[in-house]
């Protein structure tokens, strides 16, 4: 598995160059123009997802996917390596944004941790949704799927939130949310971690099945 990971790291080195450059550019802009790293956060989330899709699509583009099926590694291992890479990538980018937020944050470290933690969970949910679709529909449709997935998840969250605001009113909603955060934060964190873990596990199992059935 080490060789496969190394191959993906080397690919990441090549495809991550542009993203790193844009990320640094956004970080500087954010630093000079505002009191948080909003651009970096948004860009980081999208960049992680696109890079994950790219890692699979480059395998297809270079015919590595076909070749790798004939190598002495199981198909399950091929998928495992991809998920490990995605987790590492999402974690690394979230940690980087967190460091930047902590460096500049004026609202205290708790707010930065909650914001980045939420984004990290959102990122992992997007990955869990998108990757099986990429394996199923091949990487050609990956970009559309990616945009669709981000849009879909965001729209779903926004719709739930708006309905909630309409139902209880803005002032009540803020109060209730503060109450939840203050009293049930640990439970909320555990719940989110559990939900994301389950989603990732299901996503991984579906991806393994799809890859095991794949033929050339």
């Amino acid at each position, binding site marked *: 598995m*080490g*060789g*496969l990971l*190394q*191959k993906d790291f*080397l*690919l990441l080195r*090549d495809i991550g160059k542009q993203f790193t450059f844009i990320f640094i550019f956004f970080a500087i802009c954010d630093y000079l123009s505002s009191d948080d790293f909003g651009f970096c956060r948004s860009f980081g989330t999208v960049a992680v997802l696109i890079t994950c899709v790219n890692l699979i699509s*480059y395998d297809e583009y*270079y*015919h*590595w996917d*076909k*070749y*790798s*099926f*004939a*190598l*002495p*590694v*199981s198909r399950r291992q091929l998928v495992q390596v991809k998920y490990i890479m995605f987790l590492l990538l999402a974690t690394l980018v979230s940690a980087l944004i967190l460091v930047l937020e902590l460096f500049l944050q004026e609202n205290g470290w708790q707010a930065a941790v909650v914001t980045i933690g939420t984004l990290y969970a959102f990122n992992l949910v997007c990955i869990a949704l998108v990757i099986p679709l990429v394996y199923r529909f091949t990487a050609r449709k990956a970009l559309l799927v990616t945009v669709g997935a981000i849009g879909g998840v965001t729209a779903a969250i926004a719709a739930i939130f708006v309905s909630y605001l309409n139902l209880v009113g803005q002032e009540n909603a803020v109060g209730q949310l503060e109450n939840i955060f203050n009293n049930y934060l640990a439970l909320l964190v555990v719940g989110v971690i559990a939900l994301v873990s389950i989603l990732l596990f299901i996503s991984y199992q579906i991806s393994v099945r799809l890859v095991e059935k794949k*033929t*050339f």
Partner: protein
Amino acid sequence: MSNLLQLESVNKEFEQFKLQNITFTLPAGTIMGLIGENGAGKTTIMKLILGLQQKDSGQIKILGYALEELPLSEKAKIGLVLDEFPYPETFNCREVGMIMSKIYQNWDNKVFENFCTRFDLSDKKVLKTYSKGMKMKLQLAVALSHQAKLLILDEATSGLDPVAREEILDLLLEFIQDEQCSVLMSSHIISDLEKVCDYITYIHQGKIVFSEEKDLLREEYGIVRGNKNMTAELPAEAVVGVRQHQFGEEALVWRAKLPQGFSVEPASIEDVMIYYNRRKEG
């Protein structure tokens, strides 16, 4: 002598094409050439052997194991050269070596480096600057650096200049010298196969026409040339196929079925393939 590869009554059906009853055996220490026109089924056979396609029925045995039960440790003894270059072109050959050394347990980096030097594969250049011949050589260098016993080459020499092809063919002959290793290669360049192969398997429209020793093919078949009505004099059971041209006729014949008195010239593998093809079309 053990068999490194065995296909028995392998069938695979697609919407518009089917492989039927594919049976052949590749003994250790030999090279087998798969020949056939485009779309005959050569690549599909390779894919079935490599597990890139699932067969509908029949049995494939590799290194003594049924394909479905082939352990990864044995799979590591298969060297691959595919028609499509499989390594990311932003890498260099040293990076490819680094990756493959972690995938193959029996990887020998010294052997790989020697091949890279011998093939003039610079690690200062990224792979996208390599020529087609260099890319093929890199695949071959990888395939020969992990103590493979069975080498599978799909159109490995096509698109290469004669010098590069000759170099690759020499390497294949070196590879089988210890009588323990074998090569299965498909190619359109029949002269290449004629130089190195011990066995020739001819596939036509998804079926095996013959799978025989190359030398036996030469002994079995011959070409008879004559005037325009020459083939009428030949016994029908001796004629495989006929070709008519401006000055007369040529026929591929089974030597054993031909009565004495005819002047028979040696037939090349290409002759055998072309005449068989005409016969099938006829």
